[in-house]
Every structure is written in structure tokens, then in C-alpha cells.
């Protein structure tokens, strides 16, 4: 039971486009003693509240919000941008459950659905039950927010062993945590065990993810096909299947899978974007246009708008012989959004479009704007567009440097490497393409070798400096980032305490942890840290 005092401390956010429903909900909450209630009539306003007054304990959100964005898309946006703590209760209010039963992924589910109409008595009980659950899971939630997966697993085990009513929640979270920290074989065995008891869709999806992580692609596909048969509404299954199909060089099958998912949830933004991405690699630009036109239309004037959608849509026009349509789309975007004026995403495509239209000077000018951006902050797609613009306008060295950076920063992205290779073959030559791929690998090997040599010659500071520089340039390369952490710690161990080096070592170590959670090098790092502590605590 909640004491009245605690009720006043609970912070609510109500999101509904209808004024009467908003005030009715506020009245109901007030009658239950909850008076700390913020009100939003739109997604935009809700986001403002979250930014300025958040975090909230409970969000009550209507599924229909009037505009182009619905409650589910709003929730997906919050989760993907990490704008919600896990301890916040998100309750979706809807008149008909069937309408909302299409889901992107278990991670994007609300904590509960409330079916309209409901009385204050029902709301009271439901809130109590959900708050009890959040209270039981608070530790797990906080550990998840901090991505301390090993601790999440231990905590889940405690709840599972207790056998209380939250056991199933703990099991689901346990599986996700195993996958998140790369304990894939354990995850696989765990999900298999769950399925043997009861084939829950989340367990099958988890099993498929573990199989994918362990490169068991055929098993993974078989699991997903069974899952789609059993739970055709679970869109995450189609998403994963299409990614596996792309990775296995079956883009047509991937598009078919995504089309099927789209027919179940025609308005789903992530799916339309995925279709555009696969179709683009296939040079199926008509399909790119159809998908992205819908995305752009649906996100117009919405906080969910993304400049990259306009960029990829314009690119499709430029690539299919209509560069002027591409340019007018870019112009339009810039007129509406000041932040797009110097956006590298658009400037890169603008350069390509001008080049296609034969306007060299304008192409150079646009490219100059795009090149001012910080290369490490660009998504791989934008970086590749930028590189294409460079290569197309004769800036071969700049273009290759960008592609190299992208590939070295994403060393395990097979699909990206194929894409880069295709780009190089088109704009330079197939020979140059394979040469570039080799240079990417050999440069990283040489860098690591050089660092090892320096360390052997006791030039610890120089080794650490070199690897730190490389790790800042390639924050996605686990090997480099991990070695940078090791080099900094080795330097400190041998040459003396240095707060700045230790701080950077911790940053690299954390990044390394999230890039490659299953690496054995984490043990070496921990051991080195232990030795540093022993050496300097006994000295002082």
C-alpha cells in the first residue's frame, strides 16, 4: 500500500490529444491522491516536458495522438533515443487492444495497456500492481540503465530463484542481458530451456538472436520462420530475418520479408527505412523512393523527423537520373529546417546531384560544406555518400581516406565492406577496391605492431599516445580501443600515476566493454588495474 505522502511524490505525465480525456484522466488521478500531473497534448509537448521536468514515474499515453505519430511510435522513439529510464512506467491507453497488438520488439512494449473506458477504481488497482512490479524490479532496471549486464544477470537469478510472480519478467531480462554482454552460448542454452517449457515468442526471438551472434545463420533462419508462423504480429522477427538474408547475400528474399512485415504494419518507420536501405544496395531506386516518401511525409513537422531520410531520398533521385528533383527536395528541407542548412548529410548528396547534372562548380561548393563536418560523427551511410561525392569530383585521396576511416571504425560490418567495395569499383576500379580493403586491415595491424614494439623498448608513453590517438579516430574499432586502454594502463603502471591517463583509460575500457563484451582482454585489463592499485597504494 502507498502512503498519501508517497502518492504526492509520484510524478505523472498524461499524453492525449483530446482535451476532455486529458482533464478526465487528471481528475481520476486527483481522486486517487496523485496530484503531481503534467499534461501534454502532443508528442512535441511530451518531449519538452520530458526534457525540462523529467524523469517521470508514470507516463499515461493515448495510442491515438491525432497527428501523424501514434503512441507506439512515440514509445519507440523514447526507447531508441534512451529518453526513458527503465523504472518509468509507460502505460498505453487504447479503446481496442487489437489495434495496438502489432509490435516492433519486446523492448518497445509499454509496461501495460489500459482499455478505455475504465473507472478510477480500476486505474487505482492497476497502478498499484504495476508500481509493485517496478518496485520489485527497481534494482534490475537501474543496473540495465547502467548496462552492468553481469550484475543484471545475478539480480535476475535471485528473482527467478524466489519463484515469485515476477519470475517471468526476470527470465526475459536475463536472456537480454546474456545477449547484451556477448555470452551468446549461454543465451542460446537459456532460451532453448525456456522454449522447452513454453515456446514464448520472446524466447524464440532471443534464441534467433543468439544463433545470429554465433553465425549459425541457417538455424537462425529456421527459428525465425517458426516464430513468424507462431506469432505473425511480432515484427522484430521479420527485421532480424531480413538482416540475416542480407548478410547471406539474399537481398531479394530480404525485401520480400520486409514487404510482408510492412503489410502487417504499414506505418512502421523502422521497417520503411529498412526497406529503403536494402533496396538502395540493390539499386532499386523506385522502391527507395516509395518507402522514403512515406517516411518523410509521416515525420513531417514531427520530432521524429530525420534529415538522413531526406538525404537518402534525394540520393535515390540523383542516382536514377533526376538530380534536379533531388536538389529541390534538399532545398525544401533547408527552407523548413535551419539546422539542415549546413547538414553534411544533405550537402554530400547535393554535391553528387550537381555532379550528375554536370555542374562542377556547384558540386565542389557543396562538397566543401560537407567536408567541414567531423568525420567521426557521421553515420556510415553519410560517410559513404560523402566519399562518393569526393570520388565523383576527382578528390580520390579524400574519398579513399573517408572510406578507410569508415571501414576501420566498423571492422566487423561485412555488409558495409561489400558496399564500400562496390562504391570503389564503380568510382575507381575493382583492383583499387580490393587494395583499399587490404590497406584498411594492414594499417591497423601495423599500428598495433608498432605499439607493441614501442612498449618493448619501454617507450610506454609513446605507445599510449599513438593508440589513444587511433582510438579517438576509430571509436568503433574494438581492438584499437581495447589496446589503447591497455597501453594507457601499462604506461601508468611503469611510469607513475597520472589522473588524466587513468581517466582516459577508463573511458576506453568502458567503450571496449560495449564494443566487444565477450573479449578475454577484459580480464587482462582488470588484472593490470589491480596491479596498479597494489603498486601505488603500498608506495603511498
Amino acid at each position, binding site marked *: 500500500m502507498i502512503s498519501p505522502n508517497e502518492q504526492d511524490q509520484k510524478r505523472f505525465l498524461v499524453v492525449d490529444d*483530446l482535451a*476532455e*480525456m486529458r482533464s*478526465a484522466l487528471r*481528475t*481520476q488521478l486527483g481522486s486517487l491522491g496523485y496530484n503531481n500531473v503534467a499534461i501534454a497534448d502532443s508528442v512535441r509537448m511530451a518531449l519538452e516536458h520530458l526534457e525540462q521536468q523529467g524523469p517521470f514515474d508514470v507516463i499515461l499515453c493515448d495510442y*491515438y495522438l491525432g497527428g501523424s505519430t501514434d503512441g507506439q511510435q512515440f514509445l519507440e522513439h523514447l526507447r531508441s533515443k534512451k529518453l526513458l529510464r527503465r523504472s518509468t512506467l509507460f502505460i498505453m491507453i487504447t*479503446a*481496442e*487492444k*487489437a*489495434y495496438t*497488438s502489432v509490435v516492433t520488439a519486446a523492448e518497445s512494449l509499454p509496461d501495460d*495497456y489500459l*482499455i*478505455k*473506458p475504465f*473507472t*478510477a*477504481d*480500476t486505474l*487505482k*488497482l*492497476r497502478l498499484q*500492481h504495476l508500481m509493485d512490479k517496478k518496485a520489485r524490479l527497481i534494482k534490475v532496471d537501474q543496473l540495465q540503465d547502467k548496462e552492468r549486464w553481469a550484475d543484471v544477470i545475478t539480480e535476475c537469478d535471485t528473482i527467478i530463484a524466489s*519463484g*515469485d*510472480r*515476477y*519470475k*517471468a*519478467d526476470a527470465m526475459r531480462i536475463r536472456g537480454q542481458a546474456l545477449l547484451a554482454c556477448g555470452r551468446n552460448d549461454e543465451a542460446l542454452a537459456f532460451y532453448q530451456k525456456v522454449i522447452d517449457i*513454453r515456446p*514464448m515468442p520472446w524466447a524464440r526471438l532471443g534464441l534467433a538472436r543468439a544463433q545470429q551472434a554465433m553465425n549459425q545463420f541457417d538455424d537462425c533462419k529456421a527459428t525465425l520462420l517458426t516464430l513468424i508462423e507462431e*506469432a*505473425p*504480429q511480432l515484427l522484430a522477427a521479420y527485421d532480424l530475418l531480413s538482416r540475416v538474408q542480407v548478410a547471406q547475400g539474399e537481398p531479394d528474399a530480404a525485401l520480400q520479408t520486409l514487404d510482408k512485415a510492412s503489410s502487417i504494419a504499414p506505418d512502421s518507420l523502422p521497417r520503411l527505412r529498412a526497406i529503403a536501405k536494402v533496396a538502395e544496395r540493390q539499386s532499386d531506386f523506385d522502391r527507395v523512393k516509395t518507402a522514403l516518401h512515406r517516411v518523410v511525409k509521416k515525420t513531417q513537422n514531427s520530432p521524429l523527423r530525420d534529415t538522413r531520410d531526406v538525404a537518402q531520398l534525394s540520393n535515390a533521385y540523383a542516382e536514377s537520373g533526376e538530380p534536379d528533383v533531388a536538389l529541390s527536395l534538399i532545398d525544401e528541407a533547408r527552407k523548413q529546417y535551419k539546422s539542415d542548412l549546413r547538414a553534411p548529410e544533405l550537402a554530400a548528396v547535393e554535391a553528387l546531384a550537381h555532379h550528375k547534372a554536370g555542374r562542377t562548380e556547384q558540386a565542389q561548393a557543396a562538397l566543401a560544406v560537407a567536408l567541414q563536418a567531423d568525420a567521426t560523427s557521421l553515420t556510415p551511410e553519410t560517410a559513404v555518400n560523402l566519399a562518393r561525392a569526393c570520388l565523383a569530383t576527382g578528390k580520390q585521396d579524400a574519398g579513399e581516406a573517408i572510406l578507410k576511416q569508415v571501414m576501420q571504425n566498423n571492422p566487423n560490418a561485412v555488409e558495409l565492406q561489400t558496399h564500400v567495395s562496390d562504391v570503389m569499383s564503380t568510382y575507381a576500379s575493382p583492383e583499387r577496391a580490393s587494395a583499399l580493403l587490404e590497406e584498411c586491415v594492414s594499417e591497423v595491424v601495423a599500428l598495433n605492431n608498432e605499439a607493441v614494439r614501442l612498449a618493448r623498448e619501454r617507450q610506454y608513453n609513446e605507445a599510449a599516445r599513438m593508440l589513444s590517438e587511433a582510438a579517438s579516430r576509430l571509436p568503433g574499432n574494438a581492438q584499437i580501443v581495447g589496446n589503447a586502454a591497455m597501453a594507457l594502463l601499462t604506461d601508468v603502471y611503469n611510469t607513475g600515476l597520472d589522473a588524466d591517463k587513468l581517466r582516459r583509460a577508463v573511458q576506453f575500457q568502458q567503450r571496449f566493454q560495449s564494443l566487444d563484451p565477450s573479449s578475454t582482454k577484459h580480464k587482462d585489463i582488470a588484472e593490470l588495474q589491480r596491479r596498479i592499485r597494489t603498486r601505488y597504494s603500498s608506495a603511498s
Partner: protein
Amino acid sequence: MRFADLVALNIHDIKNRLAMVAARAEGRGDTETVHDVLGVTAELSRLLACYKAEAGQLQPAIDAYCPQYLVQELIADYQHLTTPKLEIDTDRAPSSWYYDENLVRMVLANALQNALRSARSRVCISAVEDGDWLEFRIHDDGPGYPDDRLQTAQATAPMSQEGTGVGLYLAHKVADLHTNHGLRGEVRLENDRGAVFRLRLPV
């Protein structure tokens, strides 16, 4: 647009408007109207679910839920009743069980309404773990089911000569959707000093 979609869309809209009516009534303390509206919307939901079941489109969303909570929530809206007296028994309920909470709630709410109509003085709603089964039981002290109802308990058509029978039809459909390891959910009607409605869901 398929007819099912058209119906669903309209019911959705109607329920939204009814929700508004309920909100207004609750705002001025008119409990009677609130409960009338709740009854109507529940019936609309059942109709829509029946239609979907007929069309083979009723997809269960099965997850782990707490039966004790479900029973508590079911009677929340009848707290104001003085007769019949409502009793709950969840002492032998499992801590959690796998089912589609929304569909099971729909079925039990309907059975509870029927029981409240027939009962003389009391209705007992319980959740009991019984081996591989969870049994929700709604027991009233009324005249019991008529014989022909007991005989047609396995009726699979939404319409029977006695009446609309939507509730019972849906109960069977919902029970049917709950399967695991070769076990399938079931509905049982019995007379035992009153009517006993039992919804049994496999582990």
C-alpha cells in the same frame, strides 16, 4: 477495406466516444451511467472478438500474468454492490500463469456479469492451481444453468436458439487459443447449488 476492418474501425470510434461519456458521468459522480457504459463497451469488445474468432483472426498475446491481480481487478468495478455479496478466493492461486490477460479478462467479466444477474445472495470468484491447470471459477447461488444450456455447453456457434450466446461462444474460442504441450484450455459449466462457470488454462 475488408468488412472486419470497417467494423473494427467503427467499434474503435464508438468506444472512444463512449469513453468520453463515461468520463463525463464519472466527473459528476453518476456511477450508474458509468457502469452502463462499461457494460455496453464490454459487449462491443466481445462482439468484435467473436467476429475475429469466426474469421480466424483472433491472435492471442500470451504472457505471464498474476491471476490474483486479475481477480482483484475484475471485482474492482463492482465494489459498490451490496447484493449479491462478492467473495474472492485466491489462496490457492499460482503466483503467475501464462495466458492472454485481455481475452481472459473479457471472458471472466462476462461470466461474472451473468452470475451477478442470477445470484440470490452471493457470487464467489476464485483462481486455483490444479496440477497442470489454472482454473478460474465463478460460482453463484442462483437457480443454476438450465438443462439445455448444460447440454449445449460445447456449442460452437455464436447463435443458439435460446439467445445470442456470444459470451459462451467467445469463452470456448478463447479457451481454445490457450495450448501448451498438447493441452488445450477448456470451459466447463456445472450446477452445484447454483451455476459454476469454469475456465481452465493449461500450464
